[in-house]
């Protein structure tokens, strides 16, 4: 009997998964805050409580993500690229391309049938290529982040935004609001800008079917639809896309131990 743990410390939220025989038996999501080790310890506490385990019973733990190097109790750190690839492979063995949309960056990963990384491209230099873009939009339009996606889906006349810069977009959005353009049309336009960015990133890696998505940004159904239109294919969408990387870390921990 052995249990494994994956801890994914992101810029906004931190995620943890405990697995047993490759199945996840406990999951937890917390805000990252400013002390990454503290949030990791809290994740471990909550996860082991949910699984009715003692932390000592975790055979192997892997930390990944933006703040993984601050985590004190894991045996190993692994890049989020490998963990994400492994996580998607566990959920969707047929996936060959992954679009991973995180709070401060996004990446496209090309994988083989075993979940090994073949190629990879990241957008981390520009806020428009990350979930941050939607935080900015939510803020300027005074909407809840969670509502943006579904609201954008109600538009049948997306506007064309002239810019791919989050800062300039903010000004343009204010202008459009003052012109009386419905907010759903503005959002649908912004989602298209984002999908264009992702399309360019996917082209750098090369699109191989099937394509899966992961990361918190994926919770926005507007993005999923816009990407499906852009890529002209149906995407594999996990039920809990934010947990994919933590799950992958736990799976890698299990393989490591065996």
């Amino acid at each position, binding site marked *: 009997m052995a249990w494994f743990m994956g801890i994914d410390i992101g810029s906004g939220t931190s995620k943890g998964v405990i697995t047993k025989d490759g199945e996840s038996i406990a999951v937890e999501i917390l805000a990252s805050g400013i002390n990454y080790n503290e949030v990791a310890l809290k994740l471990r506490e909550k996860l082991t409580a949910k699984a009715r385990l003692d932390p000592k019973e975790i055979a192997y733990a892997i930390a990944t993500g933006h703040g993984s190097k601050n985590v004190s109790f894991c045996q190993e750190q692994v890049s989020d690229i490998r963990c994400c690839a492994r996580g998607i492979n566990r959920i969707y063995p047929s996936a060959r391309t992954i679009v991973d949309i995180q709070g401060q960056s996004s990446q496209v990963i090309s994988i083989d049938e075993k979940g090994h990384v073949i190629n990879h491209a990241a957008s981390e*230099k520009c*806020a428009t290529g990350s979930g941050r873009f939607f935080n900015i939009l939510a803020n300027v339009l005074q909407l809840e982040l969670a509502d943006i996606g579904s609201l954008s889906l109600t538009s049948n006349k997306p506007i064309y935004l002239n810019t791919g810069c989050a*800062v300039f977009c903010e000004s343009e959005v204010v202008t459009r609001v003052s012109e009386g353009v419905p907010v759903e049309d503005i959002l649908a336009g912004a989602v298209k800008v984002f999908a264009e960015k992702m399309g360019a990133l996917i082209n750098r890696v090369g699109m191989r079917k099937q394509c899966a998505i992961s990361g918190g940004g994926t919770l926005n159904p507007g993005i999923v639809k816009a990407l499906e239109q852009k890529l002209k294919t149906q995407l594999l969408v996990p039920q809990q896309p934010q947990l994919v990387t933590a799950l992958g870390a736990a799976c890698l921990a299990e393989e490591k131990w065996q």
Partner: protein
Amino acid sequence: MTDMFFAGLDLGSTMTKVVIIDNNEKIWASEITHTGAAHRRLANKVMEKALEKAGLSFNSLALVIATGYGRMSVPFADKQISELSCHARGVVHFLPTVRLAIDIGGQDAKGLKIKDGKLEDFVMNDKCAAGTGRFLEILSNFIGIGLNELGPISMKATDKCSCNNVCTVFAQQEIISHLSDGIPIEDIVAGLHEAIAMRTVRMVRRIGIEPDICFTGGVAKNCGIVKAFEESLGFPVFVPENPLLSGAIGAALLGKEIVMNNGEKDVTIKRPDRHLEAVSFFK
């Protein structure tokens, strides 16, 4: 010959500039006002102020040229000329031997390659706030230091801190993390200036870097950026006395040249129905 007067109006995203010159290229008046939301429609007021300073009436202007981002919506202009042509002309007026002109305005950055006083090639960034005046505006606001103080503060830097994030949004977070690491603000500001300079240098490298180099636009008023440019370009950088006016002066000079060249052909370009009226976007 009696004096003739020419006006150039540069309606930028952030500032509206007007220059009035005579046929000897002497500047009679110049005016710079925030474009803002209201003034975007009131370019005529800026023109009125300049005319008042020069002691001239609107009708005495032989030709009014509009340039800049909002040039198409100036109803009282006789002609519109692209800002690239106007900037090139203005820069050559400031520095006749110029080969590379860098102009960083409120929302864009341009590089102009000039040969024998003529525009040969250009590069431009108007797609991303990083490397434009907007970047500095947002960051100065964010750290609570006036835009005009950034340059002098950065001059005090002893150990310039490198800023890796080009994105305006991410740069704000980077500033927080540098500040929490105890890095002095002057070292951070100097690092931000260097980041803008490096980004611009990478852009203008596409058209070639050759002296003499002239730097204009609002951002040229920041001595820290000028210094960062000189370090990364490896050449001295000339900044005219009023770097914001290059587009408006260039427009006025091009206006003068049009009238002078047409004088022999006896063609009227001045619109007979020209009135000094407010800008309208909804015609």
